[in-house]
């Protein structure tokens, strides 16, 4: 692949979930947990006539990043839109809980979540929701000990309940390709109408929820190029920063205040949105 003119060999976005973890971890330290050969698949998809996948779309691995013990969970965006069901959700929650237990025993372990997801898998509705709630409470337990880093590189982006999970993390890293938002563009278009929000207008969508806009609005911590090197460097950098003194979600009151005085008569522009979020978030 290294000489291929089509796929940039150093691209992170182009890689599968398993390849992404392998490239993020120190060489030869990756050990996959609940591997696909254990055949822990979704018990619900086949009943609804949907072909399952051996890892249920989530890869979990332990390893080292810059010599530091880390557990990594990566969602495969190509399988069912990266949606989380009972099994895939429990795998991520279990990985985070493992790190909490290790830290409680005095063995430092950080976590990295590579998020490509539309949120809950609708075919497993309540079980997916419950799993995401478990993921969120595990993030909150773990972030007291060691950084929990969310990576949103695209192409799927991170939406639904998992966008809340990303926001709960100690740090969020995005690329230009990545998108982060509670509701996906198609859902908003359906609710608000195509005149207000055209989901097929790509420049418009990215100008509101893309990585660059999210970074310039102060909602994420790092905006990087799509390369394996810059992803790894950014992750190492944020691991070294340690636990933040104040987590982003602890400052939610300031943002609520800003939204209270927002005039929704006019269509919001990317510039207005940025200004509102920066001021509301207490940034200069």
């Amino acid at each position, binding site marked *: 692949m290294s000489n291929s003119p089509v796929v940039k060999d150093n691209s992170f976005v182009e890689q599968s979930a398993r390849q992404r973890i392998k490239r993020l971890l120190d060489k030869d330290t990756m050990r996959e947990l609940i591997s696909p050969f254990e055949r822990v698949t979704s018990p619900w998809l*086949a009943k609804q006539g949907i072909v399952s996948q051996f890892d249920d779309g989530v890869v979990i691995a332990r390893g080292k990043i810059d010599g530091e013990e880390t557990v990594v969970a990566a969602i495969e965006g190509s399988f069912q839109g990266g949606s989380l069901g009972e099994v895939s959700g429990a795998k991520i929650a279990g990985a985070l809980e493992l790190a909490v237990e290790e830290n409680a025993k005095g063995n430092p372990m950080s976590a990295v979540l590579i998020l490509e997801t539309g949120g809950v898998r609708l075919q497993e509705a309540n079980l997916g929701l419950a799993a995401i709630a478990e993921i969120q409470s595990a993030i909150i337990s773990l972030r007291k000990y060691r950084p929990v880093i969310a990576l949103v590189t695209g192409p799927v982006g991170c939406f639904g309940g998992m966008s809340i999970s990303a926001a709960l993390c100690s740090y969020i890293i995005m690329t230009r390709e990545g998108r982060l938002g509670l509701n996906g563009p198609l859902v908003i278009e359906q609710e608000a109408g195509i005149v207000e929000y055209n989901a097929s207008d790509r420049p418009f969508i990215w100008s509101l929820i893309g990585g660059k806009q999210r970074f310039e609005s102060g909602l994420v911590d790092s905006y990087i190029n799509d390369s394996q090197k810059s992803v790894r460097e950014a992750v190492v950098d944020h691991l070294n920063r340690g636990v933040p003194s104040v987590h982003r979600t602890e400052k939610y009151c300031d943002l609520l205040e800003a939204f209270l005085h927002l005039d929704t008569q006019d269509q919001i522009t990317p510039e207005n949105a940025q200004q509102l979020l920066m001021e509301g978030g207490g940034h200069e």
Partner: protein
Amino acid sequence: METLHFQRRAQENHVQPTLVGCVGSGDLEVMIEPSDSEFSDIYIQTSTAGSEVRWQQIIDQITPVIPLPAMRMDIHDFAATPGVIRLRIEQALEQATSVGGDKHE
């Protein structure tokens, strides 16, 4: 969704556990695990109804070219075309029989 099973007499012995591909639109995953029997067992889950004859033809085209090892092969197919199917199966067999190769990515 359909589940199919094909069995062929195995020609070789040594395979290592292998996984290739992804159950994404137009793609499939192929998993290979060693087996103690004298057969190659191929289990298929496919989203395409009425595709048994086509799968049989694909397997019949591959067997004279690549000797099938004693194994259990599981295929999860999400409407892949015959060309993609053949490439994935060949990729999996190559990885499963290569020495010291990358097990799965």
